């Protein structure tokens, strides 16, 4: 068998034929990519992922020994382009494949990779992250959930929140504190935990736009095998950093491990900003045309930025933290777009009109969640710290918890 990688063009042709024979076409009458995920999607997307896996088109950039295809980001980009007319298992992209699987590939043991990474690629398992806690968002390393070693198990107590899609996941990569006498970054460990367990109580968190894709979890003496530790005990921050790298990359839109792209908001026909302008009868208005052109320009720039930074990081010219620039742009640019769409949509964005189709109002509802873009996956303020301190090498912020045993760090007034 040859180790030579198939050319992108040959691969594209093969993928096009396979997609046409195997994947369902997008249905123009069906809703896609709404901010609320229908329960049926989880069932469907697992099945779609299994189909991709059986056809040899799952996990294109993951190594073959873990169920992937060992191909390049260029192959993945070609596959995504070819997949646009079809339904794809998009819900499994982030966090399961783009974030958790990427981290496990780099940091997991051979057994963990065979079980969880292969499981995620084959559609058998969905992974999620248990990272943030209610006591602190940006100060992730100050987390309080504790894991106590007990023989060949860990016993976990504490609380996590902002875990996207946890209700639909099977396992979570959970960052916990294992040493309270070490400074905060040096007492953490990453442990794979089951999501659905009698010792874990899970709630869905309702957001201002009515969506409830985030969850919170309460652990009371949750027992997991010690072999679920990723990396070494108390080196969880290194593991977590790797996971955060994939999070920035995935949230910024530059992950090689995600496949397919969502049709634009609404139905498969895509109610773009151009269509919005037409719908409200402002498509001939020069001021509106200027705004539409500006939104288009910024969308294009956002993608060009991802491409450029990916090149820079791959060649080693840019540090890994350069991904924070993608993260920052990926908040600012969609927010500008939301502002402009809300403006163009006008009065029907805030009231329901009897003969309307609800689309204009959905723009108003999305606007309620505008700040989500600069909060999820690390706030824009943290990205700005990263860029200034790790790209521009400016002095770091003062911290009262540096080199202090975590036990002694103040956690309230």
């Amino acid at each position, binding site marked *: 068998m040859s180790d030579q990688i198939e050319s992108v063009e040959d691969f594209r042709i093969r993928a096009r034929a396979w997609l046409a024979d195997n994947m369902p076409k997008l249905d123009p009458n069906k809703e896609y990519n709404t901010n609320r995920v229908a329960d049926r999607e989880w069932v469907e997307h697992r099945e779609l992922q299994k189909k991709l896996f059986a056809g040899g088109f799952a996990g294109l950039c993951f190594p073959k020994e873990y169920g992937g295809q060992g191909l390049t980001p260029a192959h993945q980009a070609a596959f995504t382009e070819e997949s646009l007319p079809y339904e794809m298992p998009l819900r499994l992209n982030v966090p399961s494949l783009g974030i958790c699987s990427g981290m496990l590939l780099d940091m997991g043991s051979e057994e963990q990779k065979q079980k969880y990474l292969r499981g995620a690629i084959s559609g058998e398992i969905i992974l999620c992250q248990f990272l943030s806690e209610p006591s602190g968002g940006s100060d992730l390393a100050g987390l309080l959930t504790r894991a106590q070693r007990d023989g060949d198990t860990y016993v976990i107590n504490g609380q996590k929140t902002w875990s996207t899609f946890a209700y639909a996941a099977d396992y979570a990569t959970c960052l916990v504190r294992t040493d309270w006498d070490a400074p905060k970054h040096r007492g953490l460990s990453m442990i794979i935990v089951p999501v659905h367990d009698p010792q874990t109580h899970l709630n869905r968190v309702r957001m201002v736009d009515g969506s409830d894709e985030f969850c919170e979890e309460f652990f009371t003496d949750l027992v997991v095998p010690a072999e679920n530790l990723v990396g070494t005990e108390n080196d969880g921050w290194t593991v977590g950093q790797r996971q955060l790298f994939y999070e920035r990359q995935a949230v910024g839109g530059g992950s090689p491990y995600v496949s397919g792209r969502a049709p634009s908001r609404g139905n498969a026909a895509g109610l773009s900003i*151009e269509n919005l*302008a*037409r719908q409200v009868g402002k*498509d001939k208005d*020069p001021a509106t*045309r*200027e*705004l*539409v*052109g*500006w939104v*288009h*320009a*910024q969308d*294009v*720039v*956002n993608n*060009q*930025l991802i*491409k*450029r*930074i990916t*090149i*820079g990081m791959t*060649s080693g*010219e840019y540090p890994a933290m*350069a991904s*924070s*620039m993608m993260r*920052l*742009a990926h908040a*600012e640019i969609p927010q500008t777009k939301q502002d402009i769409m809300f403006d163009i949509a006008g009065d029907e964005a805030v009231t329901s009109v009897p003969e309307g189709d609800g689309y204009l109002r959905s723009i108003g509802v999305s606007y309620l969640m505008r700040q989500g873009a600069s909060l999820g996956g690390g706030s824009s*303020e943290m*990205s*700005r*710290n*990263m*860029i*200034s*301190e790790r*790209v*521009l090498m*400016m*002095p770091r*912020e003062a911290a009262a918890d540096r080199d202090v045993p975590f036990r002694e760090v103040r956690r309230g007034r």
Partner: protein
Amino acid sequence: MDLQLTEDQKLFRNTTVKFLETEAPVEKVRELNKAGGGFPPEFWAQGAELGWAALLVPEDLGGGSISGNGFQDLVIVAEEFGRLVSPGPLLPVNTVIAGLVEGAASGPDHSEAIEGLMSGESIGSWAAYEPKGHWDPLNPGTTAAKNGGNYVITGVKDRVEVGDVANVVLVSAKTDSGVALFLVPTDADGVTVEPVDSLDFVRNYATIRFDGVTVPAEAMVGTEATSADIVERMFQVAITLQSAEMCGAIDRVFEFTVQWAFDRYSFGRPLASYQALKHRFSDMRTWLECCMATTDAAVKAVNDRDDNAGRLASVAKAYVGTKAVQIIQDCVQMHGGLGVTWEHDCHLYLRRTMVDRQLFGTPADHKRRIADLIGL
């Protein structure tokens, strides 16, 4: 600021930088400004020797590129022009050359004019604006009346870069059968040149009157049928060179402003240690990267004559034009009162980017053009 330059292109950049730093450092730009602006003829002649006007010329006419991608090579020079606010007709000469090369397939031969421009002996510029008119090069008030084997051109063009010293100008005019481009020598009878300065320290312009200027039919570039395509090509070349030059300018301003933030102490600590300022630097750094990313993409598309080149060139001009002046104004703010003094270099860069931003279509013009191009 392509991250994937070839070794030859890197060498070309180094040669360009060395030459510019020696022959036209910023102090020299200030001296030129004091003396009325413009560029020293010998400076441009030397630049032409380095190939600055040959990169868009086909090899059979004596031109040639460094990498096989002449426009990408030319952009390297434009970026370095931005980094040093350099003098010289890089944009106008190359834009005219792009037009002449483009017109060769359909219209009269202009290889002699191309050779003159390429060697630096002749200076050319695209006379595209008319008084009180906004950017609308395909709708000239200037006319060209057919008279036997000649055309008689009448009208006024303004905001012609290097118009004060140009030997030839490319003029769009209405004929009986449409709009055509003509290459007109500025020493022809009936041509009057009135120099005009600009906000830029060394970039001079002119208003040029054509009072019944007779040119032979061979002065036409392309034909009425191809003039729109030629104008589009020149337009793409011009605005992408502007975007590249603005990238060079903001790259340099950001660089010395970051350095300033490390060196300047207030309340016993460097400016670079204040989070309020660090965050602004992070925003600027991100916008700078966006500017470079979109310019890279436009350069490649224009170089490759991609079907999307017009749209991508306008995306870059709209974005970079908007952000470049914003970044420099923020950098001025970081310098405090010093930033608005004549002595500090900030304003040289601000001037250059303001001129690049406003001419050949403002960002607003380009945003509306994008709306046209995406079919709204």
